[in-house]
C-alpha cells in the first residue's frame, strides 16, 4: 500500500516540470519590464500597409533625410537618438564618485516580504512547486496551472 502511494506521488511530480531559479528570475524580470512599456498594441500607422510605405514614419530613418535639406533637428536626431540604456552607459557611473543615478536607487526593504495569490491577489500561504508563483486555494492553483504556470514560455 505504502509503496503504491509513493509511486503515484512521484508520478504526479514528474508530470510537472520544475523551473530552475534562473528561469524564475528571467520571468520576473520580463514581467517587470512589461510594466515599463508605453503601449501593448501596434502603432495604428503600422496597420496601413501601403500608406505606411509612402508616408513619413514616426521613426524616420536617415534615408529620407538625405533628400531633405539638413536642418538643426536632423543634427539633434543623429546625436541624441540614444535610448535610456545607452545614455546610462555613456554616463559611466560605475567609476564616478558621489551620489548619482545608480546610487540614488532605494535600497531593498528591511521589512518582511509579503505574499499574494498570483490569481486573485489575496494574501497567500502556498507556493506553486513548478514555477514558484503564489496561490491561496486549490481553485486558484487550478486556474494558475491552466492559464500561466508552465505555459509562459521564457
Amino acid at each position: 500500500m505504502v509503496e503504491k502511494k509513493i509511486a503515484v506521488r512521484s508520478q504526479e511530480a514528474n508530470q510537472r516540470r520544475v523551473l530552475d531559479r534562473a528561469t524564475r528570475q528571467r520571468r520576473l524580470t520580463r514581467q517587470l519590464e512589461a510594466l515599463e512599456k508605453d503601449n501593448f498594441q501596434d502603432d495604428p500607422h503600422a496597420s496601413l500597409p501601403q500608406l505606411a510605405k509612402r508616408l513619413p514614419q514616426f521613426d524616420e530613418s536617415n534615408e529620407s533625410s538625405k533628400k531633405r535639406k539638413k536642418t538643426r533637428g536632423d543634427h539633434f536626431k543623429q546625436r541624441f537618438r540614444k535610448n535610456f540604456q545607452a545614455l546610462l552607459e555613456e554616463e559611466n557611473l560605475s567609476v564616478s564618485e558621489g551620489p548619482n543615478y545608480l546610487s540614488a536607487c532605494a535600497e531593498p526593504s528591511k521589512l518582511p516580504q509579503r505574499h499574494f495569490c498570483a490569481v486573485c491577489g489575496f494574501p497567500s500561504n502556498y507556493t506553486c512547486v513548478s514555477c514558484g508563483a503564489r496561490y491561496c486555494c486549490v481553485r486558484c492553483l487550478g486556474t494558475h496551472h491552466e492559464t500561466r504556470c508552465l505555459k509562459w514560455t521564457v
Partner: protein
Amino acid sequence: MTTLVLDNGAYTAKIGYSHEKVSVIPNCQFRSKTSRLKTFTASQLDEIKDPSGLFYILPFQKGYLVNWDVQRKVWDHLFGKEMFKVDFADTSIVITEPYFNFTSIQESMNEILFEEYQFQAALRINAGSLSAHRYFQENSSELCCIVVDSGFSFTHIVPYCRGKKMKDGICRLNVGGKLLTNHLKEIISYRQLHVMDETYVINQVKEDVCYVSQDFYKDMDIAQLKGEENTVMRDYVLPDFSAIKKGFCKPREEMNFTGKYKTGEQILRLNNERFAVPEMLFHPSDIGIQEMGIPEALVNSVHNLPEEMQPHFFKNIVLTGGNTLFPGFRDRVYKDVRSLTPTDFDVSVVQPQNPICYSWEGGKLLSENPDFDEMVVTREDYEENGHFICEEKFDI
C-alpha cells in the same frame, strides 16, 4: 520681459507665464484607431472623440528625455501660435529636469533652448527644488524640508536645507503612475477583461477608484466578504465614447452584488485592486521590485543626514506629484513614518492644495525673486561660454 515656467513632466507639461495661471497639458503625441493617418500632439488629444485603444508616443523613457523628435513637436505646439505664442527674444524660461539628468541630455537642452528656440535667458532646475522654494517661502521659519515627488516615471525623496538640495539624501523608487496603470491593466486583463490596449481608459479607472489603504490586511479581509458587507467592492461603468463619454462608479445603492445589470453597459468589477495597486508605492516588493516603499525610504534617507537636522525633516514632509492625489495617501505616509520614528520627534506631512502644480507655483515665485536674474543664464552668456556656464550655474 516675461518668464515662461515649464515643469516638463514625463506625463504632463505644467506650463504658463509667471504672471498668468498654469495649464496642465499632455507631454506626448497620440495616434487613434479612428483617424489612423494623423498624429495628435499634446492638447490635440481633445480632438480625439474615441480614445479607446489610444496609442501613446512619449518623449521620456524611465523619466529621462530620450525622444527629442517628439519633445520638439510638443514644444513647438506649446510655444507656438496655437498656445503660448512665445516671443523668444523677450522671454526667459524656467524649465525642469529630473534629478541626475544625464550630461548629454543637459547639453541638448542648452542647445535647443538657446540655439533653436533662442530664449533670452534660461534657468534649468529640478522640479523638487521649485517645490522646496515654494515651501520655504510659505514657511519662512523652517530650515529644512523633505520633498516627495511621486509622478509618472518614478518617485523621488529629496531633502532640502535652507533652500539647498542635499544630494547625498536623494532617493529614487522606480515606482510611478505609469507602472501603477500598467499593473492595473495587467491584473484586470488576467482576472476579467482584456484591457492591455486601453491605457487611457484604465488610467482613468485608476484615478477614479484606487485609494491608499490605512490598514492593508483589514481591507483585504473586507474585500473577501460577500454582498453588502464588502464595502471595498465597486462596479465601474466603462465609457463607450458615444452614450457614455466618461467612465464612472455605480453609486452604491444602484450596485447589484450578483454583478449582473440589465442596462447592458460594460462593467469592470474592482475589489482588492482598488488598494493593492497604489500599495506598490508603499511596498514595491509586493510585485518583486526589491526597493523600500516611500515611508521606509524617507525615514532611511533622513537617518543618513546629520543628526541635528533630522527632527527638522520629519516636521516638514511635503508631498508633490500626481500619485499623492490617491485618497488616503497623506494619512498613510504620516502613519507609516510615525511608526518608524522615535516618539520624541514631531512628524508633519503636508499635502499642498494642488500637488501636481506645486513645483510650477514654486517656479512662478522664484521668477519674481530678486535673485532670479542672478540664477539664469542669458543667451549672450551661453553664446560666449557654451555649456560650461550652464554647468556652473545650474544645479541639476
